[in-house]
């Protein structure tokens, strides 16, 4: 927004009614006035003098700035002006003296005046911005012109916002004057475009609603006061709208499958299991005999039943018995006789492994009641069950149904495992194994995948058990380092799961910063070297049947990752998704 400087105002007042030419520095720039000795960039900058390298961040570009229409963006970090690097002042006094005169600060015109800069003087900026590839930064040169401060008036000599623009004091029937309204719009735009998405205070959807409410006024402005000002306002308004709407994502069934993963998988596997079980029993019907009453394993004719197949009744988890260090499942009772299954039997071992895979990939809820189809062995066995020695026959496991959830044919072995029915069709979980050399992006991708899969162990393992804060100055007073801290991640995990199953439909890694050394290793003998990167995540939600990025106080976009002495990257901030 163009605010008249006090000096210009006084001169203007002095000129009202005057017929003589304007005084030195002020010239007529129809339909207004310009102060030639007060040139500015038209930028609003935020100092980042403690950063490495130091710079000034572009927070806003005024509508009439000489840097409009060039490749300067809000968020760019100015590193040098006309070849002169922005330097960190030595001390507070130096900062107080030099900062206001830096580009985009309130007293920059003094510095331009010293340099004899005029309206139209071209200035070259060296700026750093995020690399379009999403990793690190790029440095570009941007040229723009300085402009003398201008004041615009209409035919009635009332101050207007830009040539042909609305009178600042008037409202045209809207709730607030144009100048106040425009100031608020700039404030909102700055909030959104200047790191708004990276702050934790922006609620993009709520702000979008507020922003869209101003469309009527923007359209009115464009229609009633066509001109540079109106078109720039519209341009800025569109930019903010696009930002607040969030990037559009196409999410297909596969992307969203994880949301019903657990239950859906369980239902599919149960159906496949029932079918496989029926087929298995049908195929082996000829070899099967009734299990009970079981023959006496000592006095009975074991040879008569050896090799025959039995379908045992379901064995609940309590029907396990330890014999020294070995475990057995048993089926039967004193009256009907017993069958025993050694848990070291290769068949049942493959069934157990299948259960473990089921819990990891389908759902952790599994009723471990085993309905076993087994082949009777000739040898008798004796076990102590509830302090009584019971004899029975050993059984070799051929197949097993586990609760109503799954079925495993243990006679089918591929790569040393027996798959549970339906397992092949399951979407393979992402490989959550990380190598030591995994990049920050890879770490976060595994982080997201583990969260979707509900893999709590992997998710928690990605957080750093150390705490390191530093500015990379090499000075001991500038660091905090604890090699160990206790991480309490249960609640963040639960909260993150809730988010990923509710409001958040996907999460993407959108940016990884350059690596920064925050503890150099020189701070004291034995000091570690700690490096840090910032990874930015984008949360995708569903809005009016579209999937779009969004941000709010409930989600965390910025994730610091650190590594110690070149070790693996880990998340330094224990926070929820």
């Amino acid at each position, binding site marked *: 927004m163009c605010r008249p400087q006090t000096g210009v105002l006084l001169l203007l007042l002095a000129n009202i009614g005057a017929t003589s030419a304007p005084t030195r520095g002020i010239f007529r720039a129809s339909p207004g006035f310009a102060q030639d000795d007060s040139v500015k960039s038209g930028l609003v900058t935020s100092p980042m003098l403690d950063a490495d390298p130091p710079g000034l961040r572009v927070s806003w570009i005024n509508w009439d700035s000489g840097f409009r229409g060039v490749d300067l963006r809000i968020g760019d970090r100015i590193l040098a002006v006309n070849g002169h690097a922005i330097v960190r002042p030595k001390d507070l006094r130096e900062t107080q003296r030099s900062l206001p005169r830096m580009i985009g600060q309130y007293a920059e015109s003094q510095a331009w005046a010293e340099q004899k800069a005029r309206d139209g003087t071209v200035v070259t900026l060296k700026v750093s911005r995020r690399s379009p590839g999403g990793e690190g930064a790029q440095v570009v040169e941007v040229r723009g012109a300085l402009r003398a401060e201008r004041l615009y008036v209409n035919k009635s000599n009332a101050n207007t916002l830009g040539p042909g623009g609305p009178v600042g004091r008037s409202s045209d029937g809207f709730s607030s004057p144009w100048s106040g309204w425009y100031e608020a719009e700039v404030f909102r735009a700055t909030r959104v475009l200047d790191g708004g998405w990276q702050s934790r205070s922006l609620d993009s959807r709520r702000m979008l609603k507020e922003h869209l409410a101003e469309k009527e006024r923007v359209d009115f402005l464009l229609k009633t006061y066509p001109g540079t000002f109106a078109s720039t306002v519209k341009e800025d308004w569109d930019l903010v709208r696009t930002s607040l709407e969030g990037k559009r994502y196409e999410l297909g069934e596969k992307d969203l499958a994880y949301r019903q993963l657990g239950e859906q998988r369980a239902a599919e596997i149960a159906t496949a299991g029932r079918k496989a079980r029926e087929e298995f029993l049908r195929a082996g019907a000829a070899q099967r005999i009734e299990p009970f009453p079981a023959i006496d394993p000592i006095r009975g004719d074991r040879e008569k039943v050896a090799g025959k197949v039995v379908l045992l009744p379901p064995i609940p988890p309590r029907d396990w018995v330890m*014999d020294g260090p070995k475990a057995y499942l048993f089926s039967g009772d004193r009256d009907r006789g017993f069958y025993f299954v050694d848990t070291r039997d290769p068949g049942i071992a493959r069934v157990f492994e299948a259960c473990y895979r089921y819990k990891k990939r389908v759902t952790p809820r599994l009723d471990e009641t085993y309905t076993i189809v087994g082949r009777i062995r000739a040898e008798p*066995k004796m076990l102590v069950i509830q302090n009584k020695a019971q004899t029975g026959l050993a059984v070799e496991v051929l197949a097993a149904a586990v609760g109503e959830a799954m079925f495993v044919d243990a006679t089918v072995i591929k790569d040393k495992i027996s798959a549970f029915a339906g397992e092949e069709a399951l979407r393979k979980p992402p490989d959550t194994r990380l190598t030591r050399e995994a990049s920050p992006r890879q770490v976060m991708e595994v982080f997201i995948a583990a969260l979707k899969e509900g893999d709590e162990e992997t998710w928690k393992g990605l957080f750093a058990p150390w705490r390191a804060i530093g500015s990379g100055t090499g000075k*001991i007073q500038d660091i905090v*380092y604890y090699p160990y801290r206790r991480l309490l991640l249960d609640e963040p995990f639960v909260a993150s799961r809730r988010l990923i199953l509710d409001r958040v439909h996907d999460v993407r890694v959108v940016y990884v910063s350059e690596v920064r050394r925050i503890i150099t290793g020189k701070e004291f003998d034995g000091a570690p070297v700690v490096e840090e990167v910032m990874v930015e995540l984008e949360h995708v939600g569903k809005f009016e049947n579209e999937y779009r990025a969004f941000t709010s106080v409930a989600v965390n976009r910025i994730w610091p990752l650190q590594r110690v002495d070149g070790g693996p990257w880990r998340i330094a901030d224990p926070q929820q998704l």
Partner: protein
Amino acid sequence: MVSRLLLVLLVLWTRPSPPGPALGDARAKELKDQILKLESDQPKDREVLQRAVDDYIKERDEFFKKLLEIVAESGTDRTNQEALWVDCVKQLRDKLRAIVEGAKGNLSKEPTVAVLAFYTVMLLDEDKCLAALQEVKVAEKRDEIVKNQALVVDMSTKLQIKWDRLLDEDNRIDEHEKRVVDELKAAIERSYDDADRKYRSIKEDAVVAVDKIVGLVKKFDKPITVLVSTLTGADLETVKQAVRAIKDLEPGIRTFSEIYLKTNENYIARRNDYNSLLGSERGGVYVLFGGFRRDTQEFVDKNGFSTAQESYSKAKDALDRLVSGLPTDGQKADIGAFAKEVLEKLSGHLSATEKIHNAFVERHKSKFFGPLGPDIKEALAETRVWEDRLRMIEGLGLESKLRQWRSSANTFFDVSLSGLSSADAEYLRKLIQERVDELVKSLEEAEKIPEKYRRDFDRREVESQLK
């Protein structure tokens, strides 16, 4: 006086100093010495650091006491002391951080670099020590040693239960087998009583018949072979009747033969019953017993006392490595003392484990593992009991009796034919020769029964299966 004083001084000087605090104070001294040497114009900062050191060492010692209690726990149901150990050390690490952070907050506004370096290095060194302690897994070794005790006791109890049941099963089969043999013996006895009666009857009848014939030969003064072809009428009838009386011995002799056949049938049937029972014994009881022995040997191999010793040894090595890897001498001294106490506790568990193992071995060796004891073999095979049974069968004197009968049958049942000519005697023998031959053959077969019994019911072969 002076010499007495010197003596007292000498005694005082050489008297051993009282034992220091159990966990040592070398580290505290080390840190305080460093504090005194720090470059700082702020005495307050030194005080803050000293207080932090005192607070930390106090906490450390309290936690170390807890760690010793964790390792000392002897309950065999407490098998996850490792988790408690780790949690305890983690808490101490949290305390360390809190104390050091608190100290930093109390320092002067511009502490010197040396002061800042001190607390940072202290934190790092102590945390390194505690991190190593957290991972040393000594409590895990304690858990292993104690679990081993519980395992051995449980195994011992179960083995006893199984043995009692096995013996019960075996005894039942044995009793059944014995009943079979008793029935066999009774059947043999009955047969032989019947045979004896039959023999006597035959002999009596033979005596009467031979007497009559001798009488007729004397009356007519001619051989019987002449009389049967020359007499007529009533006299011939009388001679024919007398000869028929000899022939009439045949049914009796046949019945005598058949007694053996019946005895043999009985024998075969009883032997089959016995073999069936023996099958249950060998294929059931002995197989189970063999399984117990294999399982027990495997158990002893994998869970013997040597495994507990190995756990102790690993704990000792881990503690030694921990102490030698510590960054400062003060830590080495203090943690070294702590490690000794930990090992003492472990040693206590090891002794208890050894006792339990010794009791296990004492109770079950020569039964469930190691060479089988003769008493165990006897309990299952009952060889001696069966030898007694053999003696009972042998005591029936079957063989001699059978030989006697056989010999008697060959000599016309020991009936004297001296009143007859040799031709007449031969004539009479031929009348019943076929039956007598049959009888002799069957008696020869019957003589083999005791030998067959010795072979078929030999428990030594059964006993040899027990290994």
